[in-house]
């Protein structure tokens, strides 16, 4: 029986469409109901030191992410080694690899399904602006992860070494500890 492909996301996110579309999709990103400065400071400190990344290896950078999680460049020293397979339990989404046009709706869905507060690390040249696969009039990849979701830390490299990923996570921890102001 030929299976109908049910991946019928209505809008295949062309890069130019994505920009306009992402404003409309982000219905509500608002400050918490209760927020005290000291409480937020304490919470951010706790959140920074226990980042649970989502296992989402797309391509070559995924191998360097696994190497960073393995024994030599251990991510667990920074509290970020607990790789959660399910988006419902992940704090940070590490884009490890090229973002093809076909996986763009999947990334949007996963980002929506992650609980807030959440952060995004764009690892590798492909997620910054298309990397080695970017040339004018190309049809296969989305040139950069920030066309899909707001990215917090960019890590250049193709693939970036595990030390670079660890440096990126440390930068993200600094950013979290600095706290975040929400528009009104």
């Amino acid at each position, binding site marked *: 029986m030929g299976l109908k492909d049910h991946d019928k996301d209505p809008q*295949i996110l062309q890069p130019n469409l994505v920009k306009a579309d992402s404003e409309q999709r982000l219905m509500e990103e608002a400050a918490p109901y209760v927020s005290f400065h000291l409480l937020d400071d304490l919470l951010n400190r706790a959140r920074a030191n226990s980042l649970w990344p989502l296992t989402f290896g797309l391509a070559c950078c995924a191998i360097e992410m696994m190497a960073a999680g393995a024994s030599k460049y251990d991510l667990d020293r920074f509290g970020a080694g607990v790789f959660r397979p399910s988006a419902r339990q992940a704090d940070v989404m590490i884009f490890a690899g090229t973002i093809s046009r*076909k996986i763009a709706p999947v990334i949007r869905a996963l980002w929506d399904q992650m609980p807030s507060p959440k952060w995004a690390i764009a690892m590798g040249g492909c997620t910054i602006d298309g990397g080695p696969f970017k*040339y*004018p*009039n*190309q*049809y296969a990849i989305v040139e950069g992860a920030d066309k899909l979701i707001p990215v917090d830390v960019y890590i250049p490299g193709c693939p970036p070494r595990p030390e670079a990923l660890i440096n990126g996570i440390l930068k993200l921890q600094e950013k979290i500890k600095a706290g975040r102001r929400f528009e009104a």
Partner: protein
Amino acid sequence: MSREDITLLKESLGKEELLRTLDDGEYAKTGFNYRSQATHDAIPAIAQIYLDRGYFLEMLTCLDRLADDEIFRLVYAFNRFDRCERHALDIDLKPTQAVATISQIHRSANWFEREVCEMFGVHFDGHQNLKRLLLPEDTDFHPLLKDFGRIEDAP
């Protein structure tokens, strides 16, 4: 394929014109031991013979030669496990012409044909599941055509 195997292949095809040419390609230069040319409706019979003789379909691809002589050239490569003998089989198709599928004979052709159909638009008759393989479901272009997505006419 030994000498008598080739003649056997020609006779067993019965009609001579099914397999127009069968000459010894030079392996050192091109990697093919034998090159042959066939008509577009002969491919199931030839594929069946290759299957019976213990060959496997190594590769099926398409060359877009619309610019110089208005044809798509399908290149089938059959090879053996026990000794190195790669047969290249060319089929020239007009742009609107379809070719019979061999996915029932060589199962690996199933995905090869889906990919060629998706990338070039060549239609394979009798293929059960000829829908998009690599690109999102509702893309309507064939990317590997020469006149698609050229750098010079970037938006």
